[in-house]
């Protein structure tokens, strides 16, 4: 049987539209479902008070503090290493076997399942280095996980700075390092920030690696050596132990909304970056 091109065209378009709509529908369904169940349970008290009775009642304040502390520490550790590696790979080395191996290594790091990072963090940081379940162990583990993202996005951002900028800078007597920090990095900053924001999003949502390394204490942490429970871990425990469905959905809602906000702001940054470049 031969179908006329006119009809295969119609068929193709309908299938493509269907696929797109299905994707969109799934996203909307998940968000509406979680928000629908979670939003009614969110109020100022939920956000700012301590959990009671293992989380069956009360709020999630310590887990918000835990999430922020863990994420910020991880970013502070990973950013200098990631940006440093990117600068070294792009500005200080010529494309060679070694740079390709380093890049390949970073890509492999990105592909390792987070539970493996968790196990590694548990064995190395928590037990071997005796950091215990703590913000420090958790954020070091997280830093390893987000390093590849920061390296790759920073590399792209650095490469997109026009070569002529470097040329002028050298022609005015600047050293390579002066060129990097006075000319290249300021111009690459929006792109680097985009990568950092994406990493923040990833850190906030991470669960498996955190349970192993930061523990699940419900107290508000006072130092880097305290154990914390992040929002995602809290959600996992509430749901798994069947403690409270309402509180679990409310936690998930706070989590989703914050990740959404972070992604939106990184898109905003990215757009500004691209606009400025094409101007």
């Amino acid at each position, binding site marked *: 049987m031969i179908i006329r091109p006119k009809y295969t065209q119609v068929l193709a378009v309908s299938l493509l539209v269907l696929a797109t709509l299905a994707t969109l529908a799934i996203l909307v369904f998940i968000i509406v479902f979680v928000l629908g169940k979670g939003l009614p349970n969110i109020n100022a008290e939920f956000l700012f008070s301590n959990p009671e009775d293992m989380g069956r009642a009360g709020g999630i304040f310590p887990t918000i503090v835990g999430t922020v502390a863990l994420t910020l520490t991880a970013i502070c550790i990973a950013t200098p290493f990631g940006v440093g590696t990117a600068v070294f790979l792009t500005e200080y080395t010529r494309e060679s076997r070694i740079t390709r191996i380093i890049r390949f290594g970073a890509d492999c790091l990105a592909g390792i399942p987070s539970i493996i990072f968790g196990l590694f963090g548990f064995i190395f940081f928590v037990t071997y280095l005796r950091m215990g379940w703590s913000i420090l162990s958790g954020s070091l583990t997280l830093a390893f996980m987000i390093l590849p993202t920061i390296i790759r996005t920073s590399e792209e951002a650095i490469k997109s700075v026009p070569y002529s*900028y470097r*040329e*002028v800078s*050298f*022609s*005015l*007597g*600047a*050293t390579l390092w002066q060129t990097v920090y006075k000319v290249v990095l300021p111009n690459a900053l929006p792109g680097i920030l985009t990568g950092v924001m994406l990493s923040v999003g990833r850190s906030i949502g991470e669960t498996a690696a955190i349970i192993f390394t930061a523990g699940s204490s419900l107290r508000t942490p006072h130092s880097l050596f305290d154990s914390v429970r992040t929002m995602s871990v809290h959600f996992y425990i509430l749901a798994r132990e069947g403690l409270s469905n309402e509180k679990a959905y409310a936690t998930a809602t706070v989590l989703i909304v914050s990740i959404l906000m972070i992604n939106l702001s990184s898109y905003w940054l990215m757009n500004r970056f691209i606009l400025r470049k094409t101007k």
Partner: protein
Amino acid sequence: MTHKIDIKNLNLYYDEFHALKSVNMVVGEKNIIALIGPSGCGKSTLLRTINRMNDLIEGVRITGEVFLDGNNIYDPGMDLYELRKRVGMVFQRPNPFAKSVSENVAFGLRVAQFKNKKKIAEIVERSLRAAGLWDELKDKLNRPALDLPLYQQQRLCIARLLAVEPEVILMDEPCSALDPIATMKIEEMMVELKRNYNIIIVTHNMQQAARVSDLCGYMLLGEMIEFNKTSEIFTNPRDKRTQDYITGRFG
């Protein structure tokens, strides 16, 4: 006496490609020298050997000597950063940094670790005046340089260069992105600058070479075919190939 620049038997290879073939050139004091020739003849490459910008390109190999005030700049002990302050460069496309007007001009000073704010402001003003931009831009010093029209951008790049007080200014087709009026302004400025600086300009535009330069070198396929007074080159070329080029038979 030692010459300002003395290029002796200079060869340059891009990997296997022989881009400059035994080039010799002598530059006295306070002249405008034009390098002309068809695309790919090596004139930009020659220009970039004088501030060692070719060093940045992978696979470049250089033999021969380039003397600046009697010192070979290809000596291993040469301070590259000092050299590039003494031999400045203006590029084909205006390329100000994404910084303010005054920060662009001050860039070379910041790189050289100038700290005195008053002094920096003075030099910025003096450089902008020398580039004929002060009256146009004195109220826009904090505006982004990339918002300026192209002809002002290119003059700003020259001001940025003058701030580090070079002795030699290399210009790599500085007007090819500009309209005729802007080109005229740059040329007027070059004649003005000639009083204090040695200028070497690479140009595609033979009329420009004839208008502004005192000495002129004609290059072809990596060789310096003829180097002479500009008036001689254009009215009485010694080499048949120079004559063919300036009369427009090819190129």
